């Protein structure tokens, strides 16, 4: 059953068929939101809201468009809204002089050499968070979701040259940051040895 057929069935009153779409896309949506927020619990709850929003917006879906782009556009908007709310919360907490203890936005780079896979993963996650939002969005859609530039254009509304530049800059910035961190770790490691 194609996406469009399912949408038609749901709009005709077979609400239970929506579950097929949820099963089909939940993995990708949760993956996308997890990479954007670097917060697995929040990603789950945002994803649930995303699917509710998709359901409410099904009457506005035009079949000539790509359904995947339609749902990722909703996921992107809701994730960016969440990130903006988080930023405001962090800002207010700082203004009020409170220590903000939400993990993703205040983790410092590790000072010890990464010894296992988990540390390596959290290092990459942190570096992804250091990227500008648009760069991160473009890179995640390309690298993790493996969308083509055209599909990214449908989701974000950006031009192809802009997407090329954002992804290219994101890669350079990541490379630079990872290299810098590796060097600083080497310096610390050498100093400790001495």
């Amino acid at each position, binding site marked *: 059953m194609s996406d469009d057929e399912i949408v038609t069935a749901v709009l005709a009153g077979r609400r239970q068929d929506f579950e097929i779409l949820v099963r089909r896309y939940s993995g990708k949506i949760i993956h996308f939101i997890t990479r954007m927020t670097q917060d697995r619990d929040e990603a789950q709850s945002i994803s649930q809201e995303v699917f509710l929003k998709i359901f409410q917006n099904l009457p506005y879906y035009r079949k000539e468009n790509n359904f995947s782009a339609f749902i990722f556009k909703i996921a992107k908007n809701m994730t960016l809204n969440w990130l903006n709310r988080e930023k405001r919360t962090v800002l207010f907490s700082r203004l009020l002089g409170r220590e903000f203890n939400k993990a993703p936005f205040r983790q410092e780079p590790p000072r010890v050499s990464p010894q296992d896979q988990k540390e390596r993963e959290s290092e990459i996650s942190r570096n992804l968070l250091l990227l500008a939002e648009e760069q991160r969005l473009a890179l995640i859609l390309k690298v993790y979701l493996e969308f083509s530039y055209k599909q990214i254009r449908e989701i974000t509304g950006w031009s192809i040259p802009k997407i*090329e530049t954002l992804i290219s800059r994101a890669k350079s910035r990541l490379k630079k940051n990872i290299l810098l961190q590796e060097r600083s770790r080497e310096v610390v490691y050498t100093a400790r040895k001495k």
Partner: protein
Amino acid sequence: MNCKKVSRLLSIYQDRELTSALERQVEFHLRDCHACRSEWDGLQELVGSLKCLPPPASDPYFPTKVMAGLQDNRARKFRLLPAIAYALIFLTMFLSGFFLQLSYNNTMGAEKPKAATFTAVLLENQDLGLLAVHDNTLALFER
């Protein structure tokens, strides 16, 4: 193709978004240029390490939770209905009371000035007079 141009195109080449003609030119350049080759290796290593992040573990109950959320959303709407109905009933009662009171006041209040305004006209050469009360009631009376 020079190194500057290749360096600009490397990321797009990696994303497999170049035209086949440009792709061939980049490949040709990479075969000969050591500096660009090392930049390319760095990019490959970076994307490789990005891809080492595994997708989050899937929650088998996620679709069920979403469908339950849809039901909740619907139920929430229906839960609001009695409240809306009560509010409408209250509003109707309040407004009808208000208008009844207003019309009662108008009726009572209107009688006072009307009592003071009447005119009597004697019809010429007749023993009859015409009495107009409240400007809208006419009555005949004998002299």
